[in-house]
């Protein structure tokens, strides 16, 4: 039976996850602007606070005070609902990601994960598949041809790349024999899955960029042709919610990728954890997950700064004619190797 203490534990853990994600969103925007600026030999935001650290706060205040417009002829209810539907999946998708094994506080042991369900990967896929709704509805309800086209493109793109994304999940599942994220991390104790599943890793990397509509797959919001795509008509806090969803999804896919292929919270340097004073730095724990997420985010920003946007028909061809078959082959080869190796 579920006790009240357990429920409080869940509530507090969920709050921590949501706070980390929303706080992370604010600083990922700054991170992105700083890194982009450095890559383009600029300085980046440096006026608000030391090193521009208060820039996200300033941006937030600005967006709160902006006027919110609803276009004439828009479907009012859906227009308001769409940003909400976009943010919620982004916030809940990381619920199954473990941050560590357990920690002892005040004489009581707490696990560092919200829940360890045996369908964690399916849960992630289900939630990502819902996140299409917000974008499709935003585009449709705006009563604007650019927004509608952006919404349609986003829907088509996300449905296509979900297949490759799902197939890239199968490799780690087969190697672990479980869909629980905790088991998948534990199975990587000796060797990270990036070395056993290089093709799966590349597939995940590309498909996840497409899934969160990041460059070079940011067709749904291509400025030159669609003004801003599905959120062309949004302003103020409603726009901020779309922005928030995009960056939280970036954090979420980095967390999922780091957990599936880079050993999650495991430390690659555990042999150094016996050192005095600084030993805890080398022990496995949430700080390793955060480090990996930060590196992954850096990679995404780097890609954005480097690669041009690919054409829409090429995008669809890449998804269906290259990545999908590659994913299938990867699954078959992995399964065959596991059976032959007597796994």
């Amino acid at each position, binding site marked *: 039976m579920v006790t009240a203490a357990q429920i409080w534990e869940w509530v507090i853990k969920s709050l921590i996850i949501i706070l980390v994600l929303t706080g992370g969103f604010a600083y990922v925007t700054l991170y992105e602007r700083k890194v982009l600026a450095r890559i383009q030999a600029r300085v980046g935001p440096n006026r608000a606070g030391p090193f521009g650290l208060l820039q996200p706060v300033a941006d937030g205040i600005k967006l709160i005070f902006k006027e919110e417009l609803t276009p004439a002829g828009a479907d009012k209810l859906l227009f308001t609902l769409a940003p909400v539907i976009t943010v919620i999946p982004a916030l809940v998708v990381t619920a199954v990601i473990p941050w560590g094994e357990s920690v002892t506080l005040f004489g009581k042991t707490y696990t560092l994960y919200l829940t360890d369900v045996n369908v964690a990967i*399916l*849960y992630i896929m*289900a939630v990502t*598949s819902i996140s299409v709704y917000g974008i499709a509805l935003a585009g449709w309800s705006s009563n604007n041809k650019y927004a509608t086209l952006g919404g349609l493109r986003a829907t088509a793109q996300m449905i296509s790349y979900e297949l490759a994304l799902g197939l890239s999940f199968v490799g780690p599942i087969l190697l672990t024999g479980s869909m629980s994220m905790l088991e998948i991390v534990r199975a990587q104790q000796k060797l990270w899955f990036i070395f056993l599943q290089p093709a799966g890793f590349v597939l995940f990397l590309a498909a996840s960029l497409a899934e969160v509509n990041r460059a070079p797959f940011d067709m749904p919001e291509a400025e030159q042709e669609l003004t801003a795509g599905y959120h062309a008509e949004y302003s103020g806090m409603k726009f901020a919610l779309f922005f928030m969803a995009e960056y939280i999804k970036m954090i979420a896919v980095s967390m999922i990728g780091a957990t599936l292929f880079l050993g999650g919270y495991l430390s690659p340097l555990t042999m150094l954890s016996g050192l005095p004073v600084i030993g805890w730095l080398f022990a496995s724990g949430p700080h390793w997950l955060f480090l990996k997420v930060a590196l992954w985010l850096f990679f995404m920003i780097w890609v954005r700064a480097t690669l041009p946007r690919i054409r829409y028909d090429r995008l669809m061809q890449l998804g269906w004619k290259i990545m999908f078959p590659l994913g299938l082959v990867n699954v078959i080869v992995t399964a065959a190797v596991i059976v032959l190796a007597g796994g």
Partner: protein
Amino acid sequence: MNGLQVVFLLAALVSLFSAAMVVSARRMMHAALWLVLTLMGVAVIFVTLQSSFFAVVQVLVYVGAIAILIIFSVMLTRRVMEDHGDQILPGWRAAGLVAGLLFAIIVGFLALWQGFTTMLVELPADADNLLDLGQALVSPQGYALPFELASVLLVAALIGAITIAVDRKEDQHG
């Protein structure tokens, strides 16, 4: 009444209400979204039955794939079906009668099954119903035959879809 029953009742009421809204909403897009809510309600009912796999698959397949395709098609056909015409079928009485009869027959058959009256049993925490399901699907004593039949059906549907969608060279000239 415990918490689980409250959740079940709420989920059931929400799904029934939104199912009614699916057929009565005037705008196609709204009807499609009510359908999504219905399917989500069913997923919640699966959760109350401790069947997390079915809950997740329900969301993944129905909400994430089928309903989004419906919405996709509605987006492409905006304002074609809206705002005109009577929504009530001329022969709705007969249809209602048939639907009611079918419902009664199904419930009647279910009532014959002995599991109909047993109380819910909580699964032990370490039970892995996912593994059981997977094995039942491929074991000859289990559901291997229906599973294979469904696969054949799906393959046939896939091939059919390709045949319909493929570009024919002779059509391009004509």
